[in-house]
């Protein structure tokens, strides 16, 4: 892939420090409760914890048994119970139940709750209301960021999306700000900060405030990360709604990548157990195919298999000494590679089975025509059939949302009929799902004749009503006009295709969607970084409803020759998809400029914004 003038992406900073910090603090916290204890872990924290500390480390610090926090009576016999949970009311109530049950049984034990990444006042409030404030001690495990890969860190807060974008609950923003503070204390300061979106702005401002509070020891360190870019998920729902076709994205869509690892079932491992596989740059095979379009992957894998065979074959004709060398040095690596290769081939086959079906082809076709804005009627009826046949509840919802967002809302007839069909297929409780989707603007109805002036008069009426709260709602609904077509045209998101798009040698980020669409979020990032400001993007910003910002830290020398200045941290508030990560990785290589370690805060949720019907 080497072509003249292209530099490799710069090395991202060493994110492993984050892991060490988290581990040390956890050990410290466990030691705070001396003696043997049982540890109850929030289901959500299981996988992240797994990446930080293994069971033997926990045992070393006198953790006796491990339990999952779930609605079952506690069977532990230990005298000390330690709960490692996210700061949610639900979890606190769980602890309260345990304490109450013990009290009723006349048992006295020590209880300690460790909240990660931070404690919220509500939690204490609930403890108080339940009358067990005095029985329980609380602590915080400031484990904000989990490095998933060399260039990927995550906050692992799946509820961020729902809490902020749907419920308007701002509490996680503070957490984001603290995470940023941690990052800047380790790798900062950052020369330049860009961002777009309300949440981005709030998070940025809170972060600045935090920094100012501890200001003082601003020794002139050499920054390891040059720029930082904030993106709100609601700036670009479209990308999150499209089916993924790069390998890593497909693996996620098919098997669900959780916390950087995936569970391959027995059908793939061709054994009788399922295997948990860590997917990151350490996996040599995966590293080479993760960002590739799926059509290339199979060819690559078979090539790889042949190479491997050739290496094995070298054994023949070796003398004893060479053989010894081979066994001691290369064989292990080869074996390992062999194992990975067979796993990925298995995964590929499984994906192929599912995705080469006609359904999938037509799904992709529909998505593309929706993106381009052709054959809307045909797409609508495809969606209806999709629902009628109960193909997949999530995919149906995704298509409906995509239709709504690209068309600025469904026409009333479609809106009613698609919803009716959906309810008939999947149950009336989805009435609440639709309501939620409407609230975040993913699935709306075109209101005929509602021009801008109409909205304006509505707003002014509200002002006279002196209901300031409703005013913001009104503005929000204004913001929810997606304006996708306009933005798409302005930024050229649909590449003009002359002949076949060459997926083997992609020329732009559109390759992550088979050359049909450049992810909007990534395009904005590319444009802003190229201009080093928002200048010239005013129209796009207006269509996206503003809230953009660009701040230069005067204290940091902006020296473009520094390698680190090319490192850019992109913070997705509300999650991001693997397609976006692939696109940004492509951007990092191609543009001779910068590499992009993403920080998918609360990744995953955005992938299927289909919100569950109830809580």
């Amino acid at each position, binding site marked *: 892939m080497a072509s003249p003038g292209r530099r490799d992406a710069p090395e991202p900073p060493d994110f492993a420090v984050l892991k060490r910090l988290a581990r040390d603090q956890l050990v410290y916290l466990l030691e705070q409760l001396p003696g043997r204890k049982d540890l109850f872990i929030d289901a959500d924290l299981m996988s992240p914890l797994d990446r930080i500390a293994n069971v033997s480390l926990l045992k070393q610090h006198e953790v006796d048994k491990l339990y999952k926090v779930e609605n079952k009576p506690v069977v532990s016999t230990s005298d000390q119970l330690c709960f490692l949970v996210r700061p949610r009311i639900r979890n606190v109530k769980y602890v309260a139940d345990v304490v109450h049950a013990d009290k009723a049984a006349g048992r006295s034990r020590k209880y300690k709750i460790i909240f990660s990444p931070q404690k919220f006042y509500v939690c204490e409030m609930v403890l108080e209301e339940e009358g067990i404030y005095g029985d329980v001690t609380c602590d915080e495990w400031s484990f904000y960021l989990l490095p998933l890969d060399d260039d990927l860190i995550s906050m692992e807060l799946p509820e961020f999306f729902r809490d902020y974008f749907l419920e308007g609950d701002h509490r996680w923003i503070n957490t984001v700000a603290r995470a940023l503070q941690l990052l800047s204390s380790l790798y900062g300061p950052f020369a330049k900060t860009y961002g777009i979106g309300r949440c981005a702005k709030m998070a940025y401002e809170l972060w600045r405030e935090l920094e100012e509070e501890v200001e003082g020891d601003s020794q002139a360190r050499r920054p390891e990360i040059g720029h930082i870019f904030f993106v709100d998920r609601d700036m670009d729902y479209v990308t999150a709604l499209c089916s993924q076709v790069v390998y890593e994205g497909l693996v996620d869509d098919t098997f669900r990548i959780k916390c950087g690892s995936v569970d391959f079932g027995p059908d793939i491992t061709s054994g009788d157990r399922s295997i948990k596989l860590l997917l990151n740059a350490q996996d040599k095979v995966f590293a080479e195919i993760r960002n590739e379009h799926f059509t290339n992957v199979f060819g690559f894998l078979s090539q790889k298999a042949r190479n491997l065979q050739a290496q094995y074959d070298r054994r023949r004709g070796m003398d004893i000494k060479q053989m010894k060398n081979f066994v001691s040095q290369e064989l292990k690596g080869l074996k390992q590679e062999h194992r990975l290769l067979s796993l990925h081939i298995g995964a590929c086959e499984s994906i192929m089975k599912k995705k080469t079906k006609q359904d999938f082809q037509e799904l992709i076709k529909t998505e593309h025509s929706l993106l381009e804005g052709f054959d809307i009627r045909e797409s609508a009826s495809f969606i209806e059939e999709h629902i*009628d046949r109960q193909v997949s509840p999530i995919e149906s919802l995704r298509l409906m949302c995509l239709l709504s967002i690209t068309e600025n809302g469904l026409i009333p007839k479609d809106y009613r009929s698609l919803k009716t069909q959906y309810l008939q297929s999947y149950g009336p409780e989805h009435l*609440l799902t639709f309501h939620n989707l409407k609230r975040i603007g993913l699935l709306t109805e075109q209101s005929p004749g509602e021009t801008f002036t109409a909205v304006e008069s509505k707003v002014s009426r509200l002002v006279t009503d002196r209901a300031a709260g409703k005013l913001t709602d009104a503005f929000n609904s204004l913001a929810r006009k997606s304006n996708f077509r306009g933005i798409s045209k302005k930024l050229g998101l649909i590449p003009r295709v002359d002949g076949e798009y060459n997926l083997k040698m992609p020329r732009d980020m559109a390759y992550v969607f088979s050359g049909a669409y450049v992810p909007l979020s990534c395009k904005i990032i590319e444009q802003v970084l190229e201009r080093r400001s928002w200048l010239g993007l005013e129209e796009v910003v207006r269509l996206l409803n503003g809230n953009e910002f660009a701040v230069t830290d005067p204290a940091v020398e902006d020296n473009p020759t520094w390698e680190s200045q090319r490192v850019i941290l992109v913070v997705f508030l509300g999650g991001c998809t693997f397609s976006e990560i692939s696109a940004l990785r492509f951007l990092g290589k191609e543009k001779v400029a910068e590499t992009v370690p993403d920080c998918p805060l609360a990744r995953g949720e955005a992938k299927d914004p289909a919100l569950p019907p109830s809580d």
Partner: protein
Amino acid sequence: MAWDLAEELRDCLMAAAPYGGPIALLKNNWRKEKSPGSRPVLEIYSAAGLPLASIVWKSGQVVQLGWTASEDLLCIQEDGSVLIYNLFCEFKRHFSMGNEVLQNHVLEARVFHTEYGTGVAILTGAHRFSLATNIDDLKLRRMHDMPSLQKPPSCWAVLFQDRVTVILLATGQELYLLDNTSCNAMTPPGLSPQAGAYLQMAVSFNYRYVALYTDTGYIWMGTATFKEKLGEFSCDIRAPPREMVWCARPRSKQRAVVVAWDRRLMVAGNTEECIQFVLDEDSYLVPELDGVRIFSRTSHEFLHEIPEASQEIFRIASMAPGALLLEAQKQYEKESQKADEYLREIKDKEQLSEAVQQCIEAAGYEHEPETQKSLLRAASFGKCFLDRFSPESFVRMCQDLRVLNAIRDYQIGIPLTFAQYKQLTIEVLLDRLVLRRLYPLAIKICEYLRLSEIQGVSRILAHWACYKVQQKDKSDEEVAQAINQKLGDTPGISYSEIAGRAYECGRTELAIKLLEYEPRSGEQVPLLLKMKRSKLALSKAIESGDTDLVYTVVLHLKNELNRGNFFMTLQNQPVALSLYRQFCKHQERETLKDLYNQDDNHQELGNFHVHTSYASEKRIEGRVAALQNAVDEYYKAKNEFAAKATEDQIKLLRIQHRLQEDLDKPYLDCSLHDTISHLILDGKHKRAEQLYREFKIPDKRFWWLKISSLAECGDWEEMEKFSKSKKSPIGYLPFVEICVKYHNRHEAKKYAARVVPEQKVKAFILVGDLDQAADAAIEHKSESEMSLVLAKCSPAIDATVVEKLNRARAQILKK
């Protein structure tokens, strides 16, 4: 002394604080007649006698005055109540020593200082002792009774041993140690048999030594544990001394007591001789850490043991290195060569660094700046001839002396010795300056010593501001501005603290103004809440972006306001509202309903009921009722779609309930689609049809549904019947697909023939009948279809088909 007293000191009740502290006088205290002109007057003077404040005493009879460790004045009244005043005679608070004291009255009282703070011990009229070890954390303790005590003890004192306060008392020749639970008679070891009755006792500053004076003029000195005797002394004075205090320097071998009579002062130690002074007027003793302060109407003196360093240097004909160095330096100034000789002499003995050290140390003990200077000069001179001598001690001493000289100035009037200053620490000294409102001097000292801003200057500024807000004569605006001007953005300044003080003084408006300067909104909130400005607090909390703060305010509001007002307030603050909703969702679902009701949010109410019907209601009637509520709300919200959908759901629920009872299979909570498909699987085609009509299911869906269900249960016969019932709205390709899916090629073939021509090729390929597929493709003359079929062929088996296709393609190409 700067004071100009008309009265004799003996007529006043007095208290002087240690560490060069202020002196309080209560005049006219003992006059019984209560004529208005002769009310008692409480006056407070600095140690230099400068008046700080005075007030007319209007409260009850005072028995004893005393100072706390933080320089507050304690006035112990006869009835056992203790009034606390600050340096400026401003009343702070009061507390009582308990009922028993109230009944029996205070006979005598002592104020004492321990590591726990300032304590008060009281001897009541019933000859019982009560004490409180720390007046800031008042815990009254009654000491063990002394049954034999018929008259007041001749003398008593508070001892502090092993972190317990006990009382040492003497009656006649008996000596007792009194604690909470017991009373032990003590015998001082080595007490002279002729000792006689105890008249006076003295406890040293650090509670380690005790001295006893008996009516034979005998003084016993020993440890407070009465295990060891340190010395004794006999004098010929039989009169009871007025005061006796210890005079000792920490870590010094010499221990001595100072005994005072009306006109005589005696210093006695463990030697045959004593030093006696004649007093011209009434003098009073103030025990200090390293000596005794003696003050009278005209003078204020300090009596102490000369420290060793000073002795060495200033003793007549001393040959100590320090003395030689001082001399050398003097000669040097006179430009005499003797300087060299002296210096050489020290250097020969290799004592130069010791000499410098001595000079530095001695300088610290001097009160006269001239002497300090000459000693320091000598030290600095000697330092020049030393290669490696850390300048730190010298620099420190210079700094310390400068500070000490400044505060010893009579205008300031804090005569601290070097040892006291070191014991007190600079932080406490600064506090004391602040207490005396000497802000500029305090700031100067901070700056001079380069203390960190947060510890020094800004702390003092904050105190200044807190004082400033108490000035009632200035307008709120003026005060706020003056404060902001001076404080600006000095780091470490907490405007909220100052505002808190303003609020305590009853200046709420000023407090709010000051809070505006507070950069951290988080700090503003608690005070605003305290001032009952909850709405302002709420908006500040939201501004801060800290959701915890918002919750704090919201909960506060919830308790403070009635429900209606509370909801109204929330409605205007969307951020707070959504947070509270989140809380209610988990904790108080009913409140959530009230919230929506208040807002007439029928849509959310509908959603709420729907949720209830799924989450909390178990019985079918309850669920239907909840849904019915939802329908009502949806209609109110003009959401007809949702209302209709919910009505349908009610209908469905009822049907499912019936089905469940009739067929004894779980139907509840299936979607309509699934319900019908289950019915078909169970062979209840009639009922399925019924539902299909009742819910107006689109034909297409019903066909899809039916054939896939039939295929699933393998009812091919029924399927065929169905396919012939009328023309399929979805065509026949789905039939083929579904048959193939369930591996029934035979059935699939039946339908393949009925597929519309455009889809025939596809259908035949699906069935695996490549031959027919090829025929169809050829018939259509479609090249792409032909390639499709070709791709499916394997040359070995389907040779004829391949050949056929190739031929057809060739024909097309020819054309």
